[in-house]
C-alpha cells in the first residue's frame, strides 16, 4: 500500500495555527487518545470512532434525527427534552447527515493520507514564508502510527516541515520508526510523579519519560510543553499526588529537575483555559472546572525554570 492510501481518523484540521510549533502551521488533530487528562480541552478526541456532538440550542425540532436513527438513540427524556442515549449511539452519523441546522455533527472523519495531504499542501507557500509547516496533534497522533508515518513521509518528500505533538505514552519502537521523518517533537510533560500522572491522565509516566530521554539522547529536536493546571475552582483539596482535582502546579519544580539534564530546544508553558467546556457538554461528558491561572503566576514558575538553565518560555 502506498503512503497515500493509508487511512486514519482525524477530527479537525486547523490552518494558520501559530501556537503549535514555529511559523504558520496547519495542525491536524488525530482522533483517539490513550490518556484521559482531566482538563482536556479536546474531549472529542478521546475515542477512535466518530462521535455525535449535539448542540441543542441549534435544534429547530424538525425530528429528522429521530426518524433516521437505526438504533433509536435519539430520545425524549422524562421532561420531554431531546437527548442522545449514548449507550445506543454507534456514531454512524445518519442523524448528522440529516441535521441541516447543525445541531448534530459527526466529529471525526476517516480519510486517506493522500486526501489529507492534498489539503495540507494548499498552505505550503505560507509554511515556506514563515518557517512553518504541519503539526500532527490529537488526540494522540502516535496511536495511529501507520497513518502518521504515511503523512510524515509525504511531507518529507514535499519538503514540508513537520512537528509531532505527543504525550509520548506509546512503545519506544514507534518513536524509532518516525525519528528519521519528523523534524520536531512537541512533547507533553504533565506531571513529575507517576502517581500524580496516573491520577491526572489515567496512566503512569514511566514510559513517557523514558521515551523523552531516548529522544533527547538521540538528538531529536524537542520542545517540551507543560500544561499549567491549578487545582479545581473553589476546591480546598490537598495538593497531593493522589488528588486529580489538585491540578499539577505543585509539581512544577520536580518537573524542572526531570527536564534539567535533557537537551531541549525549549520548554513552553500552556496555561489552562476553558475552551473545552462547551465541547464536553455537547458530548454529555462530566465537566471539571479548574482554576484559570494568573499569568504572573505562570511567568514566575517560568522564570524559576530559566534560572535552572532550562530554556523555558510562556506566551500570555
Amino acid at each position, binding site marked *: 500500500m502506498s503512503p497515500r492510501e493509508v487511512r486514519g481518523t482525524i477530527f479537525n484540521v486547523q490552518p494558520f495555527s501559530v501556537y503549535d510549533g514555529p511559523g504558520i502551521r496547519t495542525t491536524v488533530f488525530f482522533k483517539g487518545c490513550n490518556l484521559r487528562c482531566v482538563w482536556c480541552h479536546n474531549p472529542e478526541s478521546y475515542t477512535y470512532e466518530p462521535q455525535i456532538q449535539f448542540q441543542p440550542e441549534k435544534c429547530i425540532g424538525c425530528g429528522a434525527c429521530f426518524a433516521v436513527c437505526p438504533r433509536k438513540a435519539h430520545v425524549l427524556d422524562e421532561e420531554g427534552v431531546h437527548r442522545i442515549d449514548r449507550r445506543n449511539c454507534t456514531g454512524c452519523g445518519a442523524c448528522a447527515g440529516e441535521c441541516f441546522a447543525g445541531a448534530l455533527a459527526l466529529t471525526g472523519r476517516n480519510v486517506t493520507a493522500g486526501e489529507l495531504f492534498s489539503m495540507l499542501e494548499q498552505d505550503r*507557500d505560507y509554511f515556506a514564508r514563515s518557517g512553518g509547516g504541519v503539526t500532527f496533534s490529537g488526540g494522540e497522533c502516535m496511536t495511529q502510527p501507520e497513518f502518521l508515518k504515511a503523512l510524515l513521509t509525504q511531507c518529507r518528500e514535499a519538503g514540508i516541515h513537520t512537528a509531532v505533538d505527543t504525550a509520548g505514552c506509546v512503545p519506544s519502537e514507534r518513536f524509532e520508526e518516525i525519528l528519521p521523518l519528523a523534524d520536531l517533537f512537541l512533547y507533553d510533560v504533565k506531571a513529575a510523579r507517576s502517581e500524580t500522572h496516573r491520577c491526572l491522565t489515567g496512566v503512569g509516566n514511566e514510559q513517557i519519560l523514558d521515551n523523552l530521554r531516548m529522544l533527547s539522547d538521540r538528538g531529536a529536536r524537542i520542545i517540551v510543553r507543560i500544561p499549567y493546571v491549578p487545582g479545581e475552582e473553589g476546591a480546598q483539596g490537598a495538593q497531593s499526588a493522589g488528588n486529580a482535582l489538585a491540578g499539577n502546579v505543585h509539581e512544577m519544580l520536580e518537573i524542572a529537575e526531570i527536564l534539567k539534564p535533557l537537551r531541549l530546544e525549549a520548554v513552553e508553558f500552556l496555561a489552562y483555559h476553558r475552551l473545552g467546556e462547551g465541547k464536553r457538554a455537547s458530548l454529555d461528558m462530566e465537566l471539571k472546572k479548574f482554576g484559570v491561572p494568573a499569568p504572573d503566576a505562570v511567568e514566575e514558575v517560568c522564570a524559576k525554570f530559566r534560572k535552572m538553565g532550562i530554556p523555558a518560555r510562556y506566551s500570555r
Partner: protein
Amino acid sequence: MSAMSERVELSSEVRQRIRSMHDSKIYYNDEKLKRYGGHIDIDDHGFICFNELEFAPETHEDGMVYGCGMIGRNLRRFMNAIPAYIHPDSALAGAWAGVFQRFANIGLRPGDEAPAELKAIYEKYDIHQNGVGAMNHLGPDMTIGLRLGWRGLLDKIRYYRKFNAPADTDFYDGEEELVLGMLEYVRRHADYAREMAAQAEDAFHRNNYQEIAKINENLLEAPPRTFREACQFLAHFQSVDRTYYAGGALGQIDELLRPYYEKESKAGTLSDEEAIWIVASLLYNDTHYCQVGGQIPDGSRGLTSRISYLILQATHEIHIPNNLAVRVYEGMDEELLRRAVEYILEDGSGVCFSLSKGCEEGFAKNGHPMELARMRAKVGCNWTALPGIEYPLQDVTRLNMAFALVHALDDLMAGEEEPSLEGLWEHFCRHLQILVDCNKDSYDWHYEVVSRNTPEIVLNLFCHGPIERGLNCAQGGVDIIGLNVDGIALATVADSFAAIEERVVREKRLTWQEMYDAVKSDFAGKENIRLMLNSISRFGAPDSPAEKWAIRTRDTYVQMVTSSPTPKHHLKVIPGMFSHGDVYYYGEKLPATPNGRHAGDPISHSTEPDPGFAKGIASFSPTLKANAVAKTQPGYGNSAPLHLDIDTDMLGREGGADTLMALIHAHEQMGGTLINLNCITKEQIRRAHADPASEPDLVVRVTGYSAFFASLSREYRQQIVDRYLTAEEQKV
C-alpha cells in the same frame, strides 16, 4: 534597523500637536455624525462642517450646473465661500466644506442621462452604478502641480488656450476659473494666517501662523520650494479635489516628497520630527489615497526611502483613518513591511497592502509593458492606476451577478424543458451577458456625454494631455483608456449552483420544483430546506465543490468583459470584481437565492467566501480565505481585495509581525492584489459593536478605505463583526 528605517523619538511638544489634531478629528467627526444622520459609510473625509456656509450656484435655466465654464465659475466662487481654516497645531492651512454637489444640482443635463433602453435593464437587474456620469476615479500625477504651482498651472492653461485657439473656449474658460479660484483660496488663507498670528497668545502659535502665511504667500507666486510648501500645495489640492465629486488620490507620496525632504534634510533645515508633524498635518487635512514603496519602472530599484518611513510613522502618530498603502513585492524593503505590520498590531489598523504581482502582471495582460504596470500606484480604495496618464474608472460600476442567477432560475422553471444544471448555467450566462453588454453600452454613452457635462476639471490639471490638448481626460485628454466593470456576488452565485448540484441533482433530496418553490417563497415555512441548501460545503472550504462554480463564473464573466471593447466607440474594458462595502445595499432588492440566503440579506463581498463558510473538517483560518481570494482574482490588474481580520488573541504575541508578513507575501505571490488588515481582539470588536461610543478611537479598515468604527452604520459595522465573530460567538 538601518538609519533609513529608524523610528523618530518625538518631543512632547510635537506629540502634543499631533494629539491635538487627532482630538479635533474625533470632535469634527462627531459633529458630522450629528449632522448626517448618525453614520457615514464612505471614506472618512477630512471636511469640516462650517455652519455659516451658504452658497447659491450659478445655474442654467433648468436649475442645473453642467459644462466646464459654468463649473469653473461656480467652483471659483465656492472655494471663495469656504471659510478660511487653520488648525492651531497644524503645519498647514485649509480645509474643505463637503462636496460641491451638496450645494448645487450638478450632473448630466436633461437628455444626456442614460437612454430608456439602458434604464430598463438597470431596473430589471438592479444596477445602481452603471458608469454613466461616473467621476473622479483616476489618479493624478501630482509632480505636474508640484513643478508648476498654481501660478504655473494658470500660465500653462493660458499658453495652450492661445496655442490651440479652439473655437469653443468653454474647456479653457472653466479650467482657468478654477485655478483663479484656487489662487484666491490660497490668498485668503495667507491673509487669515496673518490675522491669526496677530491674535496668537504664545510664541509657537504666532510663529506657526506667520510661517503658514509665508508659505501660502510663496505659493501664490511660485511652485513649492520647500517640504512644507509641497505639503501645503498637496493639502490645497486635496481640498479642491474632494470638493469636486469627492476625488481622493495623491499617488506615490514618498516619491513626491523625497526631493524636498532630501534637500532640506541635507541642508539641516528640516528635522525628521518636523517632517512627521507636517505629514500628519496633511493627513489631518484629508484621507487621500496614496502609496509608499514600490519600484521604479524598470524594476531595478525600490522606491522606499527615509521619507517612506516618516510618512508611515506620521500615520501611526496621528492615528486617525488614513488611506495609505504599502506596496508589497518580492525583494522589497522588508523593514518597511515589518514597520507597517508592527504599527497595525499596535493600533488595530493602519495601512493597506497593494500587491505587485497580481496588479502588475494582470495589467500587463491588457497589452501594456511591465514597466508601465509597475508605475500603477494605489490611488483608490481598492484600485491602482497610472498617475496622470490613465482613465480607468474603477469602482464606479457594479453588476450583481446574483441577479442574473435569479432571472436564470425563473426562465429555467418557466421553460418547457426538464430543468437541469447545465440548463440553468446557460440561462445564467445569457443574463450575465446582458449585464456585461449593458455596461459596455453605458460606457459608450458615458464617453459621449460626460465631457460636455461634468469634465474632470480638477484632475485635468494634473494629467499629461488635457491642458495641452484642450480635452477632458475622458475624451482623449489622456492616452490610456481601460474602463473597469465590476462583477459582484461571486460566492452567492457559486454557493447557489453548488447547493442545487448537491441537494437537487446529486442527492435528490429536493426536486427542482421544491427547491424553486422554497426559494420563491423566501423559504417561508421551509426553514429546513433553507438550512439544507445553506449547509453544503461552501466556497472557501478546502474541499468545496462550490470552488469550481466560483472559478467557472469568474472565467465566464472575465471572458465576456475582455472578449470585445465597447460596441460603439471601441473602448477597452477591463474586468474587476469589487463590491465595495455595498453588500447590504446590493442585497436589499435581491430575492432569495438557492444558497439559502433570504431575500434582502447581503450578498457576498467581492470574490471572498461568505462569512461562516468553514464548517467542515477544516476550521476557519485567514489562509483558507486568502487562498479562495487568490484563486478567483479577475486577473487583469484590477483588485479584488482580501479582508484579513485577525484576532490578535489568536496571533502569537512574539513573532506576530513575522506571521503577518509571511501571510501578506504568500498572498502576493499567489496572485492576490490587495489586503485590508485589521488586528483587534474579538472582545474589542464585540464591545464596540454593542456600544460604538465606547470606542471613539477605534479605526477599522472597512474595505479599501478606513474609518472610525463608531462612524459606520449598523449594517457596515455588522460586516466587520461578521468577519471577526461567528454567528454563535455573536450570540454570547
